[in-house]
């Protein structure tokens, strides 16, 4: 190679080299222009297409695909009864409840960064949150009020489902799941009550768990409890508190139930609840009214 280069004329070699480079540069420029052009149409890029599988044109098919191919939206059907979209039938309470659960998860995770579930630290952490952490007070307030609001919206959701008879066939099972979710919501709120480790939470949980002493068979002050071998140190209240008084173990248990166990259980029940809403035929109405004369005879075995 080196010998070949030596034999050629120096000037001719140089022009060929420059020409080659220029050609390369022009090629690069064209590629760069292509890239710039593609920036003007980001929806045509491989990156975009790999994330969004369908174009968002205003065509019915694409609108439907936008729902069906999105993991967050696919709980929705592609189409829905035109009257069910109006606020007056559902009051939106189930959706608001779920949204509040998301808000609570988000604010709750942020609060966990500042909180130690120990008798020494817990109360000080709340003071720290309220006085030193940027927006800490707002964070705690939002978590508190979202929790209270969620109880109200759960009750209103149940109220609406009852008034519209939506628990009737074929949605009987989903109503049961809903009742369990209501219980879990109230338990979530109750376990959270103890965590600030102040007088309010301490006495509320003391009153609440004292009732567990009286559980029939399983509480040491309940009917047939002592006969069943229950004492203050092995009954159901002991299991709840991790001790015979509301103390550090109770704080830790409330924390674990509140932040991990109940949210997980509630998450599973929510998945079933939403799944069954769809599988039982979507939202229950507004359905066409039925008349008394149209009642069919019940099937007998």
């Amino acid at each position, binding site marked *: 190679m080196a010998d070949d280069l030596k034999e050629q004329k120096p000037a001719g070699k140089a022009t060929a080299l420059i020409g080659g480079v220029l050609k390369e540069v022009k090629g690069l420029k064209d590629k760069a222009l292509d890239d710039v052009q593609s920036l003007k149409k980001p929806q045509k890029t491989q990156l975009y297409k790999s994330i969004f599988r369908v174009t968002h044109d205003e065509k019915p098919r694409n*609108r439907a695909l936008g729902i069906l191919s999105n993991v967050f939206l696919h709980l929705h059907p592609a189409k829905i009864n035109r*009257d069910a979209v109006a606020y007056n039938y559902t009051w939106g309470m189930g959706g608001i409840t779920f949204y509040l659960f998301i808000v609570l998860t988000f604010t709750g995770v942020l609060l966990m960064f500042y909180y130690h579930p120990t008798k020494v630290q817990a109360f000080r952490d709340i003071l720290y949150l309220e006085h030193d952490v940027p927006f800490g007070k707002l964070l705690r307030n939002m978590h508190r009020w979202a929790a209270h609001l969620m109880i109200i919206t759960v009750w209103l959701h149940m109220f609406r489902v009852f008034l519209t008879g939506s628990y009737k066939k074929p949605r009987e099972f989903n109503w049961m799941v809903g009742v369990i979710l209501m219980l879990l919501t109230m338990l979530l*709120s109750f376990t959270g009550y103890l965590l600030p480790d102040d007088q309010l939470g*301490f006495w*509320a949980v003391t009153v609440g768990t004292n009732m567990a002493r009286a559980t029939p068979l399983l509480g040491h002050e309940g009917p047939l409890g002592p006969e069943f071998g229950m004492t203050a140190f092995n009954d159901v209240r002991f299991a709840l508190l991790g001790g015979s008084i509301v103390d550090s173990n109770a704080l830790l248990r409330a924390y674990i139930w509140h932040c991990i166990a109940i949210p997980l259980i509630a998450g599973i029940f929510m998945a079933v609840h939403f799944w069954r809403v769809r599988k039982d035929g979507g939202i229950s109405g507004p359905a066409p009214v039925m008349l008394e*004369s149209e009642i069919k005879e019940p099937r007998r075995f």
Partner: protein
Amino acid sequence: MDWVQLWEITTLPDNVPIVLLILVIPFYTWYGLRQAFANDRLIDRLEADPEMAKTHHRKTQPWKPGWAREVQVWPYLLRMEFLVAIIVTFILMVWSITLDAPLEEPANPSLTMNPAKAPWYFLGLQEMLVYFDPWMAGVVLPTLILVGLMVIPYMDTNPLGNGYYTYKQRKFAIWAFFFGFIVLWLSMVVIGTFIRGPGWIWFWPGQTWDHNKLIFEANRDLPDMFGITSMLGKSLFGAAVVGLFALVTALGVHKLFTWNAFNRKIYNRMSLIQYVLLQFFLVTMMLLPAKMVARLLFRIKYVWVTPWFNI
């Protein structure tokens, strides 16, 4: 009248949600019933005119031939959901900026709060402790409330009113639910929040909470009022009274449940198990108002006294 006292209870940060509840429940009751009555009027018209029933779309919502029955979820539903999420976030933000979550002194087992109240949504249970022993008020009745709610769909054999508001077609179900939810549960929450003061003593709204107030309530047991002294006698007497109560209540429930021809038709659709379950839960539910009257008006603590349990 001690308005300051009332104002202090009402504006306690943790009581603000219940004030909200007191406003919101009547609103939604009205909002739901308004649609129910509108549907009932439509049902009346359709029943009077069978020809119209064949062609009518059977909703109170507007309808014109040619309109699509369904709309696309995007944008028609998703934009609503997005809007609602924004509104809820806004409300929460304003609420959280203007009102601080309560924080009392550090937990102190040697300094009892008086009154020591549960969070407001559990005050119904705490108020029940006045009328029943803890095993009943704190364990058995809450369990029965939950189980009773869960079996509602399996006891309700009325096929009408599935997926639309109606009052006319579901009178008994709606009255029963209103009684349980609003008259019993919510009013107990309200009593527990606004009426019960130090020592869980009854203070009327606007009455000053007197921390030194003592009431020497001469509570008595029903068997004692009849001069029954032996434990066996008390047990048998109490069983008889509770049994009689159950019988009378069950008869009353039956009377209401089979009030008119339509109700009897629904009754005939029920299996024996369904009917027995319905009676069991409704009679159990009526234990509470009965015991409230006995306790608040006649100062009766127990009706049924046995060596193992008292009711």
